[in-house]
């Protein structure tokens, strides 16, 4: 077997890899969109005045957060068909990522809501605003900037966890690399390229999130410019 990095082989498989990168980005985007919504539901469960719902909600969140995404993927992919629910690998992957990261996002939302000063609520009560109005016009506009860095972090997090989808056969970047590697008996170039593509996409994204975080902190007066 030839040692060293073969540039011509890398160049040959580049179009294939770039096409698969598109799938990875789509998977991360769709998974993230689902997670954003799921997070809202977990947040609702947490904030309803019914104790029993709070407890159940917390236990579900704890369970999902302390078990590996990989086995959750297997569970959804292999178990649902036994109950007659046949979903594609893509759909299973998106649902699982959405559920898994939804629990994390609900914590981000909660932190953001708690970051809004209590006096804001009291002022709204004094002005006789309805709860809905208070949320819509007073609380959420203040909570949203606080949530942005956390939300950004999990977007990057989901992106970096998409390779797990290859284990149930979703044709994303890592899956493509494994397929190309197996076909040509060369894993050096495909896996290295996956690493480089991830670096190119996620390092700027992470930097951008850090910049946002800094801006939010400055706006909140936590640090000086």
């Amino acid at each position, binding site marked *: 077997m030839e040692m060293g990095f073969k540039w011509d082989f890398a160049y040959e498989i580049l179009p294939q890899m770039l096409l698969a990168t598109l799938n990875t980005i789509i998977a991360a985007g769709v998974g993230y969109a689902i997670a954003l919504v799921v997070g809202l539901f977990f947040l609702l469960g947490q904030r309803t005045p019914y104790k029993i719902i709070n407890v159940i909600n917390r236990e579900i969140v704890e369970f999902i957060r*302390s078990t*590996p995404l990989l086995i959750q993927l297997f569970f959804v992919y292999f178990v649902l068909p036994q109950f007659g629910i046949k979903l594609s690998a893509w759909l299973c992957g998106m649902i699982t990522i959405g559920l898994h990261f939804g629990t994390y996002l609900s914590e981000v939302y909660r932190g953001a809501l708690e970051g809004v000063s209590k006096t804001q609520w009291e002022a709204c009560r004094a002005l006789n605003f309805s709860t809905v109005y208070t949320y819509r016009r007073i609380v959420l506009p203040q909570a949203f900037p606080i949530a942005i860095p956390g939300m950004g972090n999990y977007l990057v997090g989901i992106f970096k966890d998409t390779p797990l989808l290859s284990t149930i056969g979703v044709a994303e970047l890592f899956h493509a690399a494994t397929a190309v590697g197996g076909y040509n008996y060369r894993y050096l170039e495909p896996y290295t390229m996956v*690493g480089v593509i991830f670096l190119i996409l996620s390092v700027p994204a992470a930097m951008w999130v850090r910049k946002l975080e800094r801006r939010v902190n400055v706006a909140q007066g936590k640090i000086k410019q």
Partner: protein
Amino acid sequence: MSYFAFLAEHGTTLLLGTVTTVKVLVCSIILYVIISMIFGLMRLSKNPIVQGTATVYIEFFRGTSLLVQLFWAYYVLPFFGISLEAFTAGVAALGLNFGAYGAEIVRGGILAVPKGQWEAAHALNFSPAKRIKRIIIPQIFPIILPPAANLTVELLKATALVALVTVVDLTFEAKQINSITWLSAQCFGTALLIYYFMARFALVPFLRWLEVLAAKKVGRGKA
């Protein structure tokens, strides 16, 4: 087949897998703590080469996916003449990856130690090494342990990935049993429960205990 019959037949296999998972976890915790300390300190160095090395390391391992690093360590390193055992490759990838996240926690912890402590150590003419070792490091533990605890639970979850490079851990055994029996709900459900119990009733209480201990050591907790 009832669930109990399933447990009677495959319980031992799953338990053996769990033992391997615990081994992977303990080894990678040791590795990631050491790496975090070294690179966290390097990140604060005034020497641009030392600091640059640490920054590149951290950005590199945080920027690429853990699974990619794992496969690289196991399937690509042999191309360079370095053949690692699956277990070693798994622990190395986990330790290096989480070490990068841990280094940032250590850096934040050191920066959070009040400036007066540095100045007092300076005024007492402590050498830089002694200042770090005796004054700063003991004080960072109450600060870094809560985020480090979160990271360690993430590490437990991440150990599942080593199954994909043929380490015979809990995930691997569950997958194996699934492919023989097709009792997916039972085997993956049991695996999920074992991971859950390990995290919730062993790892997390242990880390909370460490947090309390660290707070007491610096005189912040209840005696």
